[in-house]
């Protein structure tokens, strides 16, 4: 679990070119973070897919608009 979060945090910071601490990072979603728009969302998910070597369903991509939801989905895939 913590490994996923760490990896995801690194990818997130790299993708949006920010430097967020863990607590701050976990609270992020597409509403409270300006850079996270619809296009960046797709690009970010594709990036995660590449990193974690998994595939999101269309439904999952649409739903995963916050970090917590992404972690939940990733967790489900690795259980």
């Amino acid at each position: 679990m913590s490994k996923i979060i760490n990896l995801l945090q690194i990818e997130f910071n790299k993708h949006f070119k920010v430097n967020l601490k863990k607590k701050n990072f976990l609270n992020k979603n597409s509403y409270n973070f300006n850079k996270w728009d619809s296009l960046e969302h797709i690009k970010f998910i594709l990036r995660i897919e590449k990193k974690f070597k998994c595939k999101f369903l269309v439904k999952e991509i649409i739903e995963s608009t916050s970090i917590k939801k992404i972690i939940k989905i990733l967790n489900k895939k690795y259980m």
Partner: protein
Amino acid sequence: MKTISFTSNTFLMPQSESWKILKKNFLLKFNSLNNFENILLDNNSDFNVILLTIQDLIEYPLYDLITKNKNLKKKKIKCIFDLIKKNLAQKKIVLIIDYFYPTHFNRNIKNNTIEDYLIHYIQNLSYEFKNNKNFYCLDIRNIFFRNNEKYDYRMQYLTTSRYSNSNLKSINIIINQFLERIYKPSKKVIILDCDNTLWGGVVGELGCHNITLGEENEGKAYVDFQKSLKRLKNEGVILCVASKNNYQDVIEVFKKNKNMVLSKEDITLFKVNWKNKSDNIFEISKELNLGIESFTFFDDNPIERDQVQKNLKTIEVINPDGDVSNWATQILDSTNLCKINFSEEDKNKTKHYHNILKFKDEQSRNSNEKNFLMNIGLKAKLINFSSENKIRALQLIQKTNQFNLNTKRYDEKELQYFSEERKNKIYLFSLKDKYGDHGIVGLTMLRQKKEKMFIENFLISCRVLGRYLDSWMMKKIFTYAKKSKCQTVIGKYTKSNKNDLVKDFYTLFGFKKSKPKIILNKKEIFYICDVNKLNLTINIDRLYK
């Protein structure tokens, strides 16, 4: 930097990292979605790339449309193709069509060929301007197929883009390859090895009938590789063989083995002996009068490749894939070799070079050079620049290195612009003799300014050197200068890495040197001559009847 504009009916994700490859070398401009009319207004781009994903352009239900036998006439695609047609006169258009079926079409069974009808219809449309020189069509499906890529169908539903990042990367590669082919100076010669390159096995041990070549297994791959080479030859690349072997053995294969695709006549020069390969290649370059930098070397043996690369630094060495089955595509993929535009003259190039070698051979046997030249029936012709010989003129400008006084590489637009000025003149020169029709081999660009005639460009293809064509051309230039009432003719020499040969060219004709000027880091030396004081060292009229 060249500009490329993109127009598409699908979102191409301009900020995506996948465009990195193209962004390195070109300026990219993305038009807004479906804005095909914009191509008309845009005058700054060198290339207009149009990417169409057909599935979005057809209105469904298609089935009704075809069964009721309606035409697609007023549909979107037709409009886009009409637009392209209108623009082709002035603009370079690269069309990429993606025929991938929408998800509700994806069946493995083909029935009633709605899909076929669609593809056939589009092919017919693009076939109309197939022969237009400003029109290029790239095959995107082929590269997806070769890279083992699948469409990411999720993208259809999530975004307006149809392509995933890796799809976009492939598109980048295919466009980049295409542009490299257009802008890079291409190689002229391929040096080939024999054993384990043109065929499998060693001919000295196996004999000419037992080598691996033919209809079976690995032999097929070698045949296909030779087919690729033959195709390159027809596009104007010269094939030479440099191999460590017995000459008799190799010639026997070319003559007697029925599976050989290449014949003896396809190879311009054989250097089959036990000498060092780099020495052999050097000899070939001397005999053909071509610089090493326009050579490509293909050999299966890594030791030979290293040795050649070490001794001849400017040569391009291809590292063949470990597997023979990939060679045929590998050599065609090499962007230095495959050109996109080739003229009629390219097809007969190998023949031309055979003639050159014959000419040289006979020349060396004759002690009196002028007598020899008088007897070979030289005939030159002056041709005005027109749209018909534009490709050849561009080729000469892009590729001539040694007998090129300015080495200024004009591109199509610049050349057109130059020729449209009222007081400018572009002359082309063709040559014929006993050894065959050499076609257009010389070019000069003249610019008149009051009473001065400037020779902006003067070049001759190196395959006809030693025939005093330069004197004949100079004479024509002076007659033209007199006709247009000029007092002086001014020539210009710009030094490049390869044109040492013509360093003193103008002084031979009685031009006087003036002070060198430095323009844009290039040293230019001007030579001046009075219109009546042309000094010809030989009697040109006796050579050229």
